[in-house]
């Protein structure tokens, strides 16, 4: 068992640095959202903020790419996502087609650039 998890210290670090700081926001949401009415205006605002934060996460990955994605030139990253979005719209909003199209453009571009 100790080889599988590491030691109890490693598991404690996981709980303190990973589980608790992450889970606290879900539980606050449960505590707060438990009483909000489904049709309320507050919820329209909360959904807009959640969507915009997610948009920020998307933009962050594209503008400040992590790890191996940084090896893909800026123009190619933006171009691949734009191409994926175009395919998505042309295929009557097929997420699968859009994702596959965007990935294909990125891989083709990398191959072409060498």
């Amino acid at each position: 068992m100790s080889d599988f998890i590491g030691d109890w210290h490693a598991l404690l670090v996981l709980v303190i640095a990973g589980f608790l700081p992450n889970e606290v926001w879900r539980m606050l949401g449960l505590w707060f959202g438990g009483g909000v009415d489904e049709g309320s205006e507050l919820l329209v605002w909360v959904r807009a903020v959640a969507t915009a934060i997610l948009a920020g996460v998307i933009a962050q990955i594209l503008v400040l790419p992590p790890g191996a994605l940084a090896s893909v030139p800026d123009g190619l990253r933006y171009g691949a996502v734009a191409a994926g979005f175009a395919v998505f719209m042309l295929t009557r909003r097929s997420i699968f087609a859009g994702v596959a199209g965007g990935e294909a453009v990125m891989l083709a571009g990398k191959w072409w650039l060498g």
Partner: protein
Amino acid sequence: MRAFAWGMRSVASTVLTLVLFATYLGIGALAHDSHFSLGWVLASTVLVWAGPAQIILISTLGSGATVVQAAIAVTVSAIRLFPMVVSVLPMMRTPRTKRRHLVLATHFIAVTLWVECFRLFPHVPRERRIAFTHGLGIGLCAVCLFATTLGYGLAAKLPPLLGAAILLLTPLAFLLSTARNCRQLSDVLALVLGLALFPLVSVLQTGVDILISGISAGTIAYGVHRWRERK
């Protein structure tokens, strides 16, 4: 119980399952390269259940940061879970639902489940939605545990280009699934403004850039929605 099985089956109905699979393949490989044990990274998948937070946790701890520094980085990335939970839970609740019935379903809420709840809930009778979410969450978690293990085992054999392709999956899939889920003008505006504002705010390097751009873009989108309603 039928709703639980229905939720589990829905795992196969979404392309986001593939995206999660690839993301957790990457997380498994990252954990291997950062010298964490397999059991530890599997425990992190079950307990944390949020891709970006796990990547941050593994890379900060792996690079020698303290527990406190890692915890702060993780908690900043997790703030987005709060509005997601607040907007999904009212769709799951019935007048007889107690808060404790929602704890496990709340734990499963991350981007994928948030998006899928908005897509699938209209087909699920309200009183079945909690069981449905449990099935969907446990099904997705099982897929991710498998992917984490596979990525951990394959780490040394994955080509670098695959790593770039896996990392590009997240923005592509998030963008397209959010775009498909937009119900009203405020959602579309929030998505477009959120994309546009982040690069501007990130110049400030506040450490909570996503939060600032998200709250302002979301609020502007809501303001436009209110203004149009009133006319």
